[in-house]
């Protein structure tokens, strides 16, 4: 039986971590993630989990401690956001290079300067190339479900990679929504007993982690990381299928919303997808064939599947809550890469929205869909990349 609760996104992920009961968490407070680990600290203090919680002096040290704990053979989790994730950057590559299945909640927050604590995707997009699996979540329910699934994906013996679970800072982390929790026992049996791989301090089989490898083997090592990423997709789907049996909730590589017969469509991550789906509905009611694709697995990116999902559309707008200044938004670049091999493909435009927590309103989605209608009709693109919701 599911337990229905009204909780914040932070509470939901903390509850998932309580149920999973990791061996070690090392964390450092940072808005808007703070509440997540604070709630988990209460579980530790109240004896609800057996976790060793290490209150370290920075995020760089948090990830370093997670790396040590994971290499030692523990199931490890942490959480951070924004500048905290940026400070971890060096260690993110160490965690993935050592193939340590650490799970981290990322409560998406903008990066300085100017200083801003609100939600955008610059943090996780900055960690895009770090070799971590990335799952993105529209709401607290998805953040909870993705956290549970992330352990299974990361710890899969054919994968063994760290995974981050993203949700929007404040918009999801701090707003209360309806959620269905699983009971503790199904979560524990779903995640299963932790199986260490090559743990340290196995005296009969001594190990070294992260030694110096120069021009002789580094290139091969990185190719191995690339190759393991190509296997992640199937594991994500297999874990999702099992999770559906336990929860009744279905997950894929992305969510296709009214895309099958769509002529125009939006591609949009996380919480703004919820807003945009309502607008898609209103366009459908007016007889306009609109749809939406919400990526879930962003790393590795499911290029072929996304191409299949979008190939029949006439015009697509990719909305990015992060920018690669001097380039396009990161989701846009992936979608274009996915579509390029097709002989016939939709026209694709890029909109940058919601930086530093700027509200994404239904009106923004309406304007973009109206522009797509125009493009679908005329084939003419006014501008390839544009900021929307800007105060002039």
């Amino acid at each position, binding site marked *: 039986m599911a337990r229905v609760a009204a909780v914040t996104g932070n509470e939901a992920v903390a509850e998932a971590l309580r149920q999973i009961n990791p061996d070690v968490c090392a964390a*450092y*407070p*940072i*808005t808007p993630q*703070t*509440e997540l*680990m*604070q709630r988990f*600290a*209460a579980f530790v*203090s*109240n004896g609800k989990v057996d976790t*060793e*919680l290490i*209150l370290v*002096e*920075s*995020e760089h040290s948090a990830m370093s401690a997670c790396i040590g704990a994971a290499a030692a053979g523990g199931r490890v989790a942490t959480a951070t956001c924004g*500048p905290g994730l940026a*400070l971890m950057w060096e260690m993110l590559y160490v965690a993935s290079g050592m193939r340590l299945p650490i799970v981290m909640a990322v409560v998406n927050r903008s990066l*300085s*300067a*100017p*200083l801003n604590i609100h939600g955008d995707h610059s943090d996780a997009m900055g960690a895009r190339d770090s070799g971590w699996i990335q799952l993105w979540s529209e709401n607290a329910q998805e953040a909870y479900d993705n956290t549970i699934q992330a352990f299974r994906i990361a710890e899969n013996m054919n994968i063994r990679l760290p995974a981050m679970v993203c949700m929007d800072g404040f918009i999801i982390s701090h707003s209360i929504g309806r959620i269905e929790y699983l009971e503790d026992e199904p979560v524990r049996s779903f995640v299963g007993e932790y199986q260490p791989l090559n743990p340290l301090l196995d005296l009969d089989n001594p190990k070294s982690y992260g030694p110096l490898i120069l021009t002789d083997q580094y290139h091969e090592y990185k190719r191995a990381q690339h190759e393991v990423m190509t296997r992640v997709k199937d594991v994500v789907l297999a874990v999702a299928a099992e999770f559906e049996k336990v929860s009744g909730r279905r997950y894929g590589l992305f969510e296709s919303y009214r895309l099958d017969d769509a002529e125009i469509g939006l591609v949009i991550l996380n919480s703004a997808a919820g807003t945009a789906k309502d607008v898609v509905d209103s366009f459908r009611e007016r007889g306009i064939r609109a749809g939406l694709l919400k990526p879930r697995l962003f790393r590795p990116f499911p290029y072929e599947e996304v191409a299949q999902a979008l190939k029949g559309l006439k015009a697509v707008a990719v909305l990015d809550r992060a920018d690669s200044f001097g380039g396009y938004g990161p989701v846009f670049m992936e979608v274009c890469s996915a579509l390029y091999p097709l002989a016939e493909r939709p026209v694709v435009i890029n909109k940058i929205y919601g930086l530093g927590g700027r509200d994404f309103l239904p009106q923004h989605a309406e304007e973009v869909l109206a522009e797509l209608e125009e493009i679908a009709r005329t084939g003419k693109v006014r501008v390839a990349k544009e900021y929307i919701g800007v105060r002039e």
Partner: protein
Amino acid sequence: MKDEGGRRKAAVSWRRTRGLTDTPFHYCPGCSHGVIHRLVAEVLDELGVLEKTVGICPVGCAVFAYNYFNCDMIEAAHGRAPAVATGVKRVLPDRVVFTYQGDGDLAAIGTAEIVHAAARSERFTTIFVNNAVYGMTGGQMAPTTLLGQKTTTTPAGREVSVAGFPLKVAELMATLDGAVYVARVSVHSPKHILQAKRAIREAFKVQLDGLGFALVEVLSACPTNWGLAPPDALRWVEEKMIPVYPLGKFKVPEEIS
């Protein structure tokens, strides 16, 4: 005294320091930041250096210090103020440069920066505000949290076996040859506020004389995150903090002593 119309005029015996802007503080009732801000601002004004001062803001409750100090300010990333101050001072050696940092900033994420700035004896002044807790994020355990002190991440009290000991910054800094002036003061009573101001003035004097790195640690009340009324929080500083963080001057260069 008479004004232009021959009317009697009250003598000006006190004036709000020019070192602060008119922006009202956002700090909680009973927080010591306001007092410490004013002391720093008064010293800068009285030393006549306000026009050539650059301050470095922290991340933490004092993140909005740039709204209050009436001088040029630059916002540093969490913990990096001493490194930013180093850069500013090296380019503008004739200016007065200070960092204003809390314990979550200076004594945690930025410990490396402050230690190395002091070891290099950078010629700036650091005002270090120690309230034994992460204030802005809502009262989590800081490195300076007292043993047994309850915080949101140590709800049963800081226990040494899992969370270690409080970090004593003034004592630590005093071990560094490059830190030429190190003092710990408090602002929980009028007498202590006056002592704190003297120490802050000395720390800036050290910089003006080019003697090296100077740090003043100021014990500060945080009624909100300690769960105490403001008067009780001041008593907590005196009764709980000072025994762990004794006040005094740990290092004073001969030139100003």
